[in-house]
């Protein structure tokens, strides 16, 4: 096998493992569920999604917000400035409570089943 061919295989594998296991390479891309952050609230406030869903939060406020798991079940976002987004893929069923660690009265829930 030439060096070029090896690199091609590596690139293909690289694509396959990006965001999913190699075995799922032929599965349809993960469903994306959008949650807006607006007026100091997560909208929708609570969502129920199938396993493998990618949840994408977008900050539409002029204040920064930070998506933070209540029980440290997923990695917290950085401070999201206006227009910034943050996404997490939920691979396991469960109830994921989260809040904004800057404005903790802002809370939301992702139910994965």
């Amino acid at each position, binding site marked *: 096998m030439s060096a070029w061919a090896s690199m091609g295989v590596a690139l293909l594998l690289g694509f396959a493992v990006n965001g999913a296991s190699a075995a799922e390479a032929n599965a349809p891309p993960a469903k994306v569920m959008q949650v807006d952050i607006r007026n*100091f609230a997560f909208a929708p406030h609570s969502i129920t999604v199938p396993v493998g869903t990618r949840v994408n939060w977008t900050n539409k406020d*002029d*204040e920064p917000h*930070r998506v933070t798991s209540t029980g440290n079940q997923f990695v917290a976002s950085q*401070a999201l400035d206006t227009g910034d987004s943050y996404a997490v893929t939920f691979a396991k069923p469960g109830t994921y409570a*989260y809040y904004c*660690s*800057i404005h*903790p009265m802002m809370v939301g829930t992702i139910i994965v089943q």
Partner: protein
Amino acid sequence: MRHSDDNANPGRRQFLECMAWAGAGTLWLMHGGVLRAQPLSAGGGQAAADATFAFVQVSDSHIGFHKPPNEDVASTLRASLAKVKAQPVTPDFLLHTGDLTHLSRPEEFDTLAGIMQESQVPKTFYVPGEHDVIGDNGAEFFRRFGEKQQSGGWYSFDHRGVHFVGLINVLNLKAGGLGSLGADQLAWLKKDLAPLSAETPLVVFAHMPLWPLYPPWGWGTDDSAEAVSNLKRFGSVSVLNGHIHQIQQKVEGNITFYTARSTAYPQPAPGVGPAPGPMKDVASDTLHTYLGIREVRHVQGRQALAITDEQLS
């Protein structure tokens, strides 16, 4: 005519209503928890002459914010500090009650520190806002601006007979909650105040309001009642906060609570509109009337603090 609160709230204490603002602001005189106002003229007249010392509160400079209604928050901070320099009585020090920066970024802290230095204002005591502790629990803030008295960042000091306490209520916030002081800080506060006589004037400052000003918008501190219980035996207590970018006040026995204006942008009155956040529709030629600083003069022997809020105009 302006009301004593930035946003008119009908039905509030009658004597606070319809106080005339003259020129740059109103001089507040506090006598054992009762406020008296007079127009700010010629540096406050006799009250200023009687003052043994003065200090200034600045708040919520939000360096890094760059959207309507204020795309140049560095300039409005500079203008606020120029007002400090222009006071007839040089203040002994400044208190910055938090949200120095918008996003806790190193370059924002750099800018803030540079402006404070170039403005040649006196020594400044800082407490962090929730915008100053994003991502590192305040490590960078405390390294640069902390007093380094206690590991938690809170501190106290005595200045010419007045005891000052700086509290931290923007860390370890719980989901669904408000600001938080925490058990360690409350225990320290109790111990710190224990040796003081009830005649000692107290000034307590922290970023978020230390009373339930408007909890639906997060404007309060979960365990403030316990902190306040330690203040009740004192004859003169002033609690100075920031966070809500407008002047609100409340009297509870001998304790008077004040929130300050921002030097950056105003926020709506409690419950007006769907959420807090910058008031974007403020016209640029009136923005300065929403911004400002606060000067406090101490009058020895009267247990009185004269509090002056000055607009940036």
